[in-house]
């Protein structure tokens, strides 16, 4: 056994959102002294503003710490950060697969949450040694013994000796470091085998090309090697290998047990998919590392520039985002209502939301999005199957034999007092009850639900029904046959393609009514009366009317009023700039956004 492997520990930190993962990571980095406190930027691992604001980590990354343990030896601790949200479950599982162990943080004030469980299962699946840690003991409401009991009773891990820490206050951080060294196994020495390295992250850098984060399982990799991506199939020549300190630090080689990166003038992150195995082109391994799967978008929507003249800007912005986000897909589409835009695919709603925010912040792009859609399977009368992620592409009713929609296994953790309300919500959203498990004063509910219902404002409803306490996790389960219809919206007799969506037939009436209502509230009065209709096929199921504009006049305008009144008119007109023309009707951008938010309570 190589001495290097014996002195290496590869681990992740797993936790529910807000249980203190990033803060603990910072403390570990500080305590190991690898980066001076002066250089420490708050939350080193979270690179992007959005992540910091939302308290989650989107792009994963690793860092190498040097720790002198109580046994007097110096260890390399490779901390691999994991994304913190349900949309990125697969990426989390690949990060975990790069480790031998995981630090499990449980918040002493909240105990186990839905995502704690989901992450523990992922860690167990990857045969990781789990090191429980009780965090936030400095808070007045902390109950560390409750957290210990929950870990023992519901996860089945001994937790009496778990470090009780406060990452925020820096209390007992050394205990965590010692536990990592003593409890987590060191990696195996497989230097004599052909190269196999797991890709767990990749980011694009304009100077180096794609920086591929890898965990070497077998063999070694160094600059000059020609390598193959076993699933992707492409070959590249390695320019540089290195490890992550506070920056990229080139090293001579990476060998089995190491966590680091390589670059190879790769232009497209799509060539370096997470979960793929890197091997030597000259001496390839026989089998790739297990667990690779192609991540496919689960949620689609149309994205259009609010200002139609900025189509090229939007195109450029998406291309730039795509550089670092292999999971994002987009292709051009046109809408009669919204003009030129893109059909974009996302891993889930959060991924979508984060992308919108990045478009806004990093590219100053104001966009209109259409209803998110899942991927439906349409079994046609001729027996062929087509996948539809855009209502506009749904074949005509006569061509459809039947349709299938994706269902997910959903886990919801909620405080006991909201169970009734959460169950009611799940029922309304066509959830099928599976189990219910009490964990202290909380309940873990499991439902099988159509994804269609989850992407439709479910998370907001869940939060509002539980005062923000409930947590949600879900995973794709299967496709099921379902009664689905396409709902169209007509404004002044003209169909608005951007507002069409596919809906469970029984929900079509209430949803059609509700959307017609929302449109009515958001379309300003015009010179003529504007009928708004929701229809299935040709059949009208809901109707609202925007009354004609009867009065738009400033009563007083004398010498002292001129500037003020003109400003008032200009302000009113400003809103009109963002109008979209549907036939003879002008529809403001807000109308498209408003219909995306429906309150079912």
């Amino acid at each position, binding site marked *: 056994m190589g001495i290097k492997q014996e002195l290496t520990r590869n681990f992740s930190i797993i936790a529910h959102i807000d249980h203190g993962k990033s803060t603990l990571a910072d403390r570990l980095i500080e305590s190991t002294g690898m980066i001076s406190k002066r250089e420490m930027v708050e939350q080193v691992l979270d690179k992007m503003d959005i992540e910091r604001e939302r308290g989650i980590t989107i792009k994963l990354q690793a860092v190498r710490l040097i720790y002198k343990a109580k046994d007097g030896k110096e260890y390399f601790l490779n901390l691999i950060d994991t994304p913190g949200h349900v949309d990125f479950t697969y990426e989390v599982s690949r990060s975990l697969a790069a480790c031998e162990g995981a630090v499990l943080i449980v918040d002493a004030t909240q105990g186990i949450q839905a995502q704690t469980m989901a992450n523990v299962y992922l860690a167990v699946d990857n045969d990781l040694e789990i090191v429980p840690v009780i965090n936030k003991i400095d808070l007045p409401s902390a109950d560390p013994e409750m957290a210990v009991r929950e870990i023992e009773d519901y996860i089945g891990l001994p937790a009496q000796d778990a470090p009780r820490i406060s990452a925020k206050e820096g209390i007992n951080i050394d205990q965590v470091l010692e536990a990592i060294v003593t409890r987590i196994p060191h990696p195996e020495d497989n230097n004599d085998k052909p190269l196999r390295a797991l890709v767990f992250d990749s980011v694009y850098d304009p100077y180096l090309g794609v920086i591929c984060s890898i965990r070497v399982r077998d063999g070694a990799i160094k600059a000059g090697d020609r390598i193959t991506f076993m699933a992707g199939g492409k070959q590249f020549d390695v320019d540089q290998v290195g490890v992550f300190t506070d920056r990229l630090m080139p090293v001579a080689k990476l060998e089995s047990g190491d966590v680091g990166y390589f670059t190879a003038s790769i232009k497209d992150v799509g060539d370096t998919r997470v979960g793929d195995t890197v091997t030597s082109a000259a001496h390839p391994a026989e089998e790739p590392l297990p667990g690779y799967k192609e991540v496919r978008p689960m949620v689609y929507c149309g994205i259009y520039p609010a200002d139609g003249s900025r189509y090229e800007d939007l195109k450029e912005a998406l291309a730039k985002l795509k550089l670092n986000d292999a999971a994002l897909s987009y292709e051009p589409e046109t809408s009669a209502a919204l003009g030129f835009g893109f059909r974009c695919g996302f891993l889930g709603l959060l991924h979508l939301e984060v992308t919108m925010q990045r478009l806004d912040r990093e590219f100053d792009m104001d966009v209109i999005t259409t209803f998110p859609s899942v991927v439906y399977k349409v079994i046609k009368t001729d027996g062929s199957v087509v996948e539809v992620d855009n209502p506009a592409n749904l074949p005509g009713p006569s061509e459809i034999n039947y349709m299938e929609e994706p269902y997910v296994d959903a886990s919801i953790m909620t405080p006991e007092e909201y169970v009734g309300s959460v169950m009611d919500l799940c029922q309304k959203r066509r959830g099928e009850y599976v189990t219910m498990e009490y964990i202290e004063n909380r309940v873990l509910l499991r439902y099988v639900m159509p994804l269609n219902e989850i992407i439709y404002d479910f998370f907001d409803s869940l939060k509002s029904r539980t005062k923000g306490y409930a947590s949600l996790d879900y995973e794709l389960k299967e496709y099921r046959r379902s009664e689905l219809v396409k709902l169209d919206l007509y404004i002044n007799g003209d169909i608005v393609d951007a507002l069409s969506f596919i809906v469970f037939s029984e929900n079509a009436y209430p949803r059609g009514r509700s959307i017609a209502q929302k449109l009515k509230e958001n379309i300003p009065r015009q*010179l003529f009366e504007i009928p708004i209709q929701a229809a299935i096929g040709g059949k009208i199921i809901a109707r609202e009317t925007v009354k004609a*504009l*009867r*009065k*738009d*006049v*400033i*009563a*007083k*305008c*004398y*010498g*002292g*009023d*001129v*500037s003020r*009144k*003109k400003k008032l*008119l*200009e302000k*009113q*007109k400003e809103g*009109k700039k963002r109008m979209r023309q549907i036939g003879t009707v002008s529809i403001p951008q807000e109308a498209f956004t408003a219909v995306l938010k429906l309150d079912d309570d």
Partner: protein
Amino acid sequence: MLNTDKGIYIHIPFCASKCAYCDFVSYAGRDSLIESYFEALFRQIELFPYDWAVNTVYFGGGTPSYVDARLISETLEKTARRFTLARDCEISLEANPNSLSPKKLEIYKKAGINRISIGAQSMDDDILRLIGRAHRRSDTVKAAENVLKAGFDNFNLDLMFSLPKQTAADFEDTLKAAADLGVPHISCYSLTLEENTPIYRLYEDGTYSQDDEIDRQMYRAALEILASYGLRRYEISNFALPGRECRHNTDCWDFCSYAGFGAAACSFIRNTRLETTGDIGEFIRTFTEGAGEWDAASTAYEETAGELAEDYIMLALRKASGLNESDFSARFGEDFRKMYTDIIRETVSEGLAEEVGGFYRLTDRGFDLAGYVTKKFL
């Protein structure tokens, strides 16, 4: 022929009490400031740098009739000293019905005031109470009689509609009662809800609501009833017997220059718009502590040709006569019809405007939607 009249506006920001709908610069309970305010005002008038011959003077407020009438006389004297007042100069003063005594009217008459504008607002006592007016219908009747008795044949009543609890019948009653007083000029305003007024909160919390249909019904009633008294609409909210139109305001809509004096007063001189501070304390300090310029407490903004043209259109469309196309091209050197071909065609086809004898003007329906039409030109 271009209208080259010039006017003077003088702001008197004092009131007996603040009305529930008012967001003008006006103060109730600040009487101790009145003397020093007029001192500052006189100083500002003296500092005016141009030698203007003026055609109109207008005392607005606030409530000009609230302060001692001799202060008004004195202001007018100072004005006549600094400016050349035309022989037929229109000199107007805004007044509240309950502060218009025969004694005051006599002083005004002597000072040269020849037009009185009475803030009647409604002839319904319940509504007057609701909108925070201190007077009652009988006060308005009395005031109108006093005005006529004092020899003012040129006077105006201000009326409001779309008021809380007001029905179309209530307003028709008010219109008739007002016209029956033999008034040659009536201004009718649909209540504009201004933020930070007591009445705004009533609408905000849903106690009252404004209905566009009823509002237009009331406006149409005004058109019809006032027409039957010979009062014709010459501007969106103004009705007069022929020859009794308010010259001061007409000049403003005709894009003439005017100089405003006092706190919060606005001026339009050549291409520049000025607005004096609305902070009465600041106004007084500026002009009693030796300011050397008449606009020392004002902000000035020189408008571009495009902005001027927009102002011009916004104001011209308020007039029943509409926009004089040759006047436009004389002022801006551009052909109105060529510049706005599409908008003109569109608004005419929508039935909102018409072109008659070199004028582009709103139709009846267009008057309901003057804002809508104007916005097209901005």
